């Protein structure tokens, strides 16, 4: 009897002390995935729902911009580079033409600078509205997508009315903006100045953008579920930002109040009054909020610029027909909607650059992914990636 009792007791203890052995799973998130903003591939070792050791694999969209720039002329490159960050088309052309103008030592006329500024801020509004649309969709809410895209269409239609293209405007020229279509000597030359109705259309569109910002605020900003999904998720401290070179709204959300629009003078931002929103903790909620406020500020900048634009003036400085940039090298950086974008231009006096190095913001922004996704849950991976707001064209160039 006692032997049986002993045996039963041993058996019971043996059952309790068996350990559960689990294996972790290698999950490939992407490159074809609804939420990776392009063809980003994350190789994640996942244990249950928690991911360890996330490695991004990039390069699926490498198009060879820097090599391509070596064999193209300056006007051709201006047509190509607005495709780097295709969401904010116009903003990609600006640092490049400013770099070439710096080497040629040309001064851009004032009306052209105002037009450049208006279109750049519209590109910023367009890019941030796309973020405000897509980020709640990744979290599961389907409706802010349509609200934000509805107003984004207005802005894109305005850009199209001026430049002819919604995403790829190709409106910058070295020395200003596009002066005339057809540079021949016939009488059919058409000036490419602002079309009739642009100023009133812009005022209307900016009012609508501000009102949809209020709508999105009511729909998203107070929503407890969104707050639960984004507050405290993916906190990036200031030292990590500095270490990895993260820039743009992600940097400002972590509490670093640095905005290139206030520091550099590639466009006349110092004439306008706008705030730079700075976050506090650096979690995903702050990143959303910084971009949301930036949309409002950009709409206000456009309103001020519309009121202050000089009524007439040349659209391009006097430049020779065939543009040859003198020898030299320069680096110009600008505040793109996604972050800091810089062009390092080395010219040897020819019709095209000798070397164009593109410092794209999203490439540095996603370099923190292995650090920040360590130990994150799988749904949080999606929330964090969405809040970094990168575009693969910008990453891979």
């Amino acid at each position, binding site marked *: 009897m006692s032997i049986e009792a002993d045996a039963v007791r041993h058996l019971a203890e043996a059952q309790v002390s068996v350990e559960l052995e689990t294996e972790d799973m290698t999950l490939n998130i992407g490159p074809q995935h609804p939420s990776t903003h392009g063809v980003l591939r994350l190789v994640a070792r996942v244990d249950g729902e928690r991911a360890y050791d996330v490695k991004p694999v990039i390069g699926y969209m490498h198009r060879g911009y820097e090599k391509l720039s070596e064999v193209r002329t300056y006007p051709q490159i201006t047509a190509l580079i607005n495709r780097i960050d295709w969401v904010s088309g116009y903003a990609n052309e600006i640092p490049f033409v400013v770099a070439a103008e710096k080497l040629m030592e040309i001064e851009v006329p004032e009306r052209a600078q105002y037009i450049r500024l208006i279109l750049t801020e519209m590109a910023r509004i367009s890019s941030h509205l796309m973020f405000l649309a897509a980020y709640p969709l990744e979290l599961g809410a389907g409706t802010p997508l349509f609200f934000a895209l509805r107003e984004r269409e207005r802005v894109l239609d305005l850009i199209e009315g001026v430049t002819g293209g919604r995403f790829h405007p190709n409106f910058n020229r070295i020395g200003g903006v596009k002066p005339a279509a057809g*540079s021949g000597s016939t009488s059919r030359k058409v000036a490419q100045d*602002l079309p009739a109705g642009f100023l009133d259309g812009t005022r209307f569109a900016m009012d609508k953008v501000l009102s949809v910002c209020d709508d999105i605020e009511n729909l998203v900003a107070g929503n407890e579920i969104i707050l639960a999904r984004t507050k405290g998720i993916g906190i990036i401290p200031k030292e990590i930002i500095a270490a990895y070179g993260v820039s743009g709204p992600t940097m400002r959300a972590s509490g670093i109040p640095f905005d290139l629009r206030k520091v550099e003078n590639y466009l006349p931002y110092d004439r306008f009054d706008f705030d730079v929103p700075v976050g506090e903790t650096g979690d995903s909620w702050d990143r959303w909020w910084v971009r949301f406020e930036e949309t409002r500020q950009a709409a206000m900048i456009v309103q001020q610029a519309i009121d202050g634009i000089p009524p*007439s003036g040349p659209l391009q400085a006097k430049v020779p027909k065939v543009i040859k940039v003198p020898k030299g090298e320069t680096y110009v950086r600008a505040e793109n909607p996604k972050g800091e974008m810089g062009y390092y231009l080395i010219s040897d006096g020819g019709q095209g650059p000798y070397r164009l190095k593109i410092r794209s913001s999203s490439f540095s922004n996603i370099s923190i992914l292995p650090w920040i996704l360590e130990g994150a849950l799988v749904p949080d991976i999606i929330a964090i990636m969405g809040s970094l707001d990168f575009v693969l064209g910008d990453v891979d160039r």
Partner: protein
Amino acid sequence: MARAIPGGGLVKGLGVTITTFFKTVFMPGKYLATINYPVEKETPVPRARGVIALDQDACTVCMLCARQCPDWCIYIEGHKEELPPATPGGRIKVRSKLDRFDIDYALCMYCGICVEVCPFDALFWTPEYEYSEPKMGAMLHDMDRLQGWLETVPDPPGLEK
């Protein structure tokens, strides 16, 4: 820990959705954001870059557009013709005549450099966009088709102030 009790934020969100619902149902003229393509079509702005039209008479086969195109999608062939002199004993005029002018819209990136550099204003933008084809080879528009697009070139929009 989720603050999972439905609070004011959730109710506000519900309010936004339901007001949009009623606005779209009862006042579609003002609040409906989409149009029913292909029954209704939006007119694009005059400067929209839809397709490129060619004015054959103005072209002098200078090849500037083909050279400046970043994608090399313009194929031009021409030959020189001699015209008799206007007055007897005068100079023989040599004029270039266009044999082939094709734009391959499968390669074209709609940048507009060709339109801009043409010294004789032979190329124009038109906002036509409905020319998609089932076969990619049919996206090569030849000379006559490009001439046909010329009718759709809109008048340039008036300028501000």
